[in-house]
């Protein structure tokens, strides 16, 4: 994201509806259905990838449309030719939907947490402990609030053990970690900042070091 895109005014709308036009609700539903737990095996790797475009010329839902098309093509589920023609290619296989209407209610209300793990991992840090956010570049790459790297903060909370983003739904013994909320002063993060302001960032255990 370049400074120009991020420095503009907030497009604030009071009492904004969930969607302004029916197609927005529709693409949100398609994205939600395709990135739900039922489709984890097909789209898990994509669902943890980057958000839609930050280009202000591309609206959020328009970006979601482009993103879901890219996922579907990359997963081999549709082709761009089929999309352009508006119909399946001759001889294309017909699948069976994994999400049906009768499942939606229980899916939305399910407390099944795809990220939380029931794995015994000893916490490396305690609440109130001073920690340093390591300047690291893990493989595979993780999306991160990277602005906190190289900074010193205080552990605000230990949320427990979670699966790393690329391993959603997979609680592997040697890959699951404690997820911490770490509070940094704004001055620590940005240099010149209001002396009373703080930012709390979620960070994995291997992203932190004791001081």
């Amino acid at each position, binding site marked *: 994201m370049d400074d120009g895109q991020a420095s503009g005014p*907030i497009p604030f709308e009071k009492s904004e509806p969930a969607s302004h036009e029916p197609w927005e609700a529709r693409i949100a539903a*398609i994205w939600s259905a395709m990135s739900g737990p039922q489709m984890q095996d097909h789209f898990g790797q994509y669902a943890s990838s980057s958000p839609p475009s930050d280009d202000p010329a591309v609206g959020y839902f328009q970006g979601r449309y482009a993103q879901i098309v890219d996922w579907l093509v990359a997963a081999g589920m549709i082709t761009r030719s089929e999309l352009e023609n508006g119909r399946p290619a001759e001889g294309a296989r017909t699948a069976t939907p994994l*999400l049906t209407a009768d499942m939606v209610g229980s899916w939305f209300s399910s407390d099944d947490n795809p990220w939380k793990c029931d794995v015994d991992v000893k916490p490396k840090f305690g609440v109130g402990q001073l920690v340093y956010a390591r300047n690291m570049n893990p493989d595979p790459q993780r999306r991160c609030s990277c602005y906190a790297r190289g900074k010193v903060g205080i552990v605000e909370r230990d*949320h427990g053990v979670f699966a790393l983003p690329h391993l959603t739904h997979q609680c592997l013994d040697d890959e699951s970690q404690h997820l911490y909320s770490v509070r940094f002063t704004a001055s620590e993060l940005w240099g010149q900042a209001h002396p009373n302001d703080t930012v709390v960032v979620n960070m994995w255990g291997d992203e932190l070091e004791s001081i």
Partner: protein
Amino acid sequence: MIPSDLTLRVKSLESLLVEKGLVDRAALDAVVDMFEHKIGPRNGARVVAKAWVDSAYKQRLLEQPNSAIAELGYGGQQGEHMVVVENTPAVHNVVVCTLCSCYPWPVLGLPPAWYKSAPYRVRMVIDPRGVLRELGLELSDDVEVRVWDSTSAVRYLVLPERPAGTDGLSESALAALVTRDSMIGVAKVHG
């Protein structure tokens, strides 16, 4: 009215996915119904109002937010691990998702476009007071502004301060005062 290009594109995509057996149209209808009628900030407003009138509930909400929210019948997708942060005269909390648009669907519904916008996501962590001022909220210098950067695994709900002069109001009347913006932290609740 001539449908927009995206109306046609999304309709065409949906039809293709239905024809290929990848989505069930009735399931999509049910998901849209969820978005419009089952989840939304009126759920969060009930949670806030109950916390205002019932100190034991408020304690449960702060200590075990998922189970406390579930007491009112709310919970589930995109709110599997909740944290509730309480505004006080000394600390004003506000939520952002710098990486994308993580947001507690069960209690606030789908996030508004401004919450998902690049300017909000970038500027809120760098200049929270400037952003709040732009959105109509001025905070005094002695208040700590605490910005919570949400991620997919953890979703935040701000418990706003109860406004003065509301002692005689019922729980439902209090809930009617609570706005979505106050539960994100970009506004206060007014009596």
